[in-house]
């Protein structure tokens, strides 16, 4: 599945003092891929837009912490 979250796997040494985190993630939000905003992009309804923080569906990319993700996250 396509995602704006990307992952990498840092080197793990047998002498690492802490339990290694095998997979690290970073965010590449949608605006990095869109360039100059093209006309006629799909919009949220005014109420949804106020909740989302943007009028434009293509730019909406909410961040949830681990706990919130387990709860399924919340979309507008």
């Amino acid at each position, binding site marked *: 599945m396509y995602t704006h979250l990307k992952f990498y796997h840092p080197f793990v040494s047998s002498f690492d003092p802490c339990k290694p985190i095998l997979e690290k993630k970073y965010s590449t939000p949608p605006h990095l891929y869109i*360039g*100059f*905003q093209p006309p006629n992009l799909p919009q949220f309804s005014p109420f949804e837009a106020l909740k989302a*923080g*943007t009028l434009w569906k293509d*730019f909406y990319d909410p961040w949830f*912490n681990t706990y*919130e993700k387990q709860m399924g996250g919340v979309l507008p």
Partner: protein
Amino acid sequence: MWIYEKKLQYPVRVSTCNPTLAKYLIEQYGGADGELAAALRYLNQRYTIPDKVIGLLTDIGTEEFAHLEMIATMVYKLTKDATPEQLKAAGLGEHYANHDGALFYQNAAGSPWTATYIQAKGDPIADLYEDIAAEEKARATYQWLIDLSDDPDLNDSLRFLREREIIHAQRFREAVEILKEEWDTKKVF
């Protein structure tokens, strides 16, 4: 001039008494990539940038003050009824010694805000690239704040603020394209 509307840009609700969160949130109040730095940076740069993008800097700089006010509200709500003992337990004993319950422009580690956080180079591209970087850094800060926070209502407001940083970064990127004066021509180099 400005017109002030006596309400927040987005509602700020805090569900748990957790002064430790206030300590972290201060990063976005008076930190290097915080809302004060953002507002002052953009509103100052706009005097020496091509006319086409002055309005953008005015709009975003103004919105950053609305964000500053949201962060202030969060910090205030999280600390207003905290006892000195609770503040001490939250790592805010030093803050209490200096400021009582007052807010102050400083980062999460207590360093006061400084103009050295921001730049105005006079070169439109250099300034806009700084602005893009500032927005991406603020976006990242909100990610780490959401990761640190277990307050669902607070996170809702933080998510709104993070989304605004995405939009600001997008608009600054578009401003660069406008200044390149090639964005609407199909050109093959």
